[in-house]
């Protein structure tokens, strides 16, 4: 569980989150662009806590956009802590109204999504990104520079806020695959 007493500037004290139901494609809510929010709105603070709680409760999930829980708000949570493919890791954080201000060193990689559980796709993503946004609850501007797995996750979540799934970005007609989970 995310620690609600965490006082790091990236993640202010949040109320205990509630796990929300995650939409699955072809749910219409996944294809709609989300709108900017007031990061000090109490409902947005609750949403931030709920995203983290839902993400933690979902196996193999490192990030969640509000659109995935049916809320068309530009808010996403992310936590790649302990993930074997992560290099830079900023721990758990939630960003409102995020903007990717820089994206470089593009590489193709295969990715999956909680909202598209039975497919994976090869998608070209920047391996270095700078993302800026506002921390729900404090209103502080947070700018993060990251790479690799965390950078891919940031771009994947920001895509959700624009109503895009990885399916909209697959690198070719043979870049879509059935998911085969080997545990």
């Amino acid at each position, binding site marked *: 569980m995310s620690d609600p007493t965490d006082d790091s500037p990236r993640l202010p004290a949040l109320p205990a989150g509630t796990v929300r139901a995650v939409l699955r494609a072809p749910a219409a809510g996944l294809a709609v662009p989300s709108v900017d929010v007031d990061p000090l709105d109490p409902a947005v603070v609750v949403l931030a806590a709920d995203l983290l709680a839902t993400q933690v409760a979902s196996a193999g*999930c490192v990030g969640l956009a509000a659109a995935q829980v049916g809320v068309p708000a530009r808010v996403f949570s992310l936590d790649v802590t302990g993930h074997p*493919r992560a290099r830079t890791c900023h721990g758990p954080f939630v960003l409102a109204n995020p903007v990717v201000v820089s994206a470089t060193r593009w590489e193709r*990689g295969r*990715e*999956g999504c909680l909202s598209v559980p039975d497919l994976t796709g090869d998608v070209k993503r920047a391996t270095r990104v700078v993302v800026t946004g506002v921390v729900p609850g404090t209103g502080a501007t947070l700018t993060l520079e990251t790479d690799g797995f965390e950078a891919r996750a940031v771009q994947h979540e920001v895509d959700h806020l624009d109503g895009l799934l990885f399916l909209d970005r697959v690198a070719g*007609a*043979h870049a879509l695959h059935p998911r*085969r989970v*080997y545990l």
Partner: protein
Amino acid sequence: MTGPSVSQGRLLVVTIVGHDRPGIIARATGVLAELGANLEDSSMTILRGHFAMVLVASAEVTADEAQSALATLAGTSLSVSVREVPDESVHAPVGKPYLLSVHGADRPGIVSTVTAQLSDVGGNITDLTTRLADGLYVLVVEVEVPDAADVGALTGRLADVARDLGVDVSLRALDTDDL
């Protein structure tokens, strides 16, 4: 006209191969739609100028009925075959996925020699593409390799056969980022 409904009856495999030209997919899938067939998985590509389509569709009609309906296309230099198949349950992966790339001067036996190394260790190929481009032969394979297999030894054997074939080979883990 009745409204669209998803057919749950038979599972048909439709194979269409022939001279490539615009409109084949639209016409073939149009015939299937008129029969009420619902397309499921498919792969369609162009192999050295030949259009090649394999698709699985669920339908109420029989394979013969679909074949007859699609025969209107066959008069246009397309080879069409339809047959009924059982509903296969998707088997669990046999191991972790790897991507194998082979490239080099073309010669007979590259695919058979390389894939034999994979089957020898119980590997299961899930996707494979080959392309011949002006003497350069390229083979790309997605393969599940059982945990019990020694990947280091497999890499060594692949290097050995690649040397004999005069081609380059690489085997790397195929990771999926779950986001």
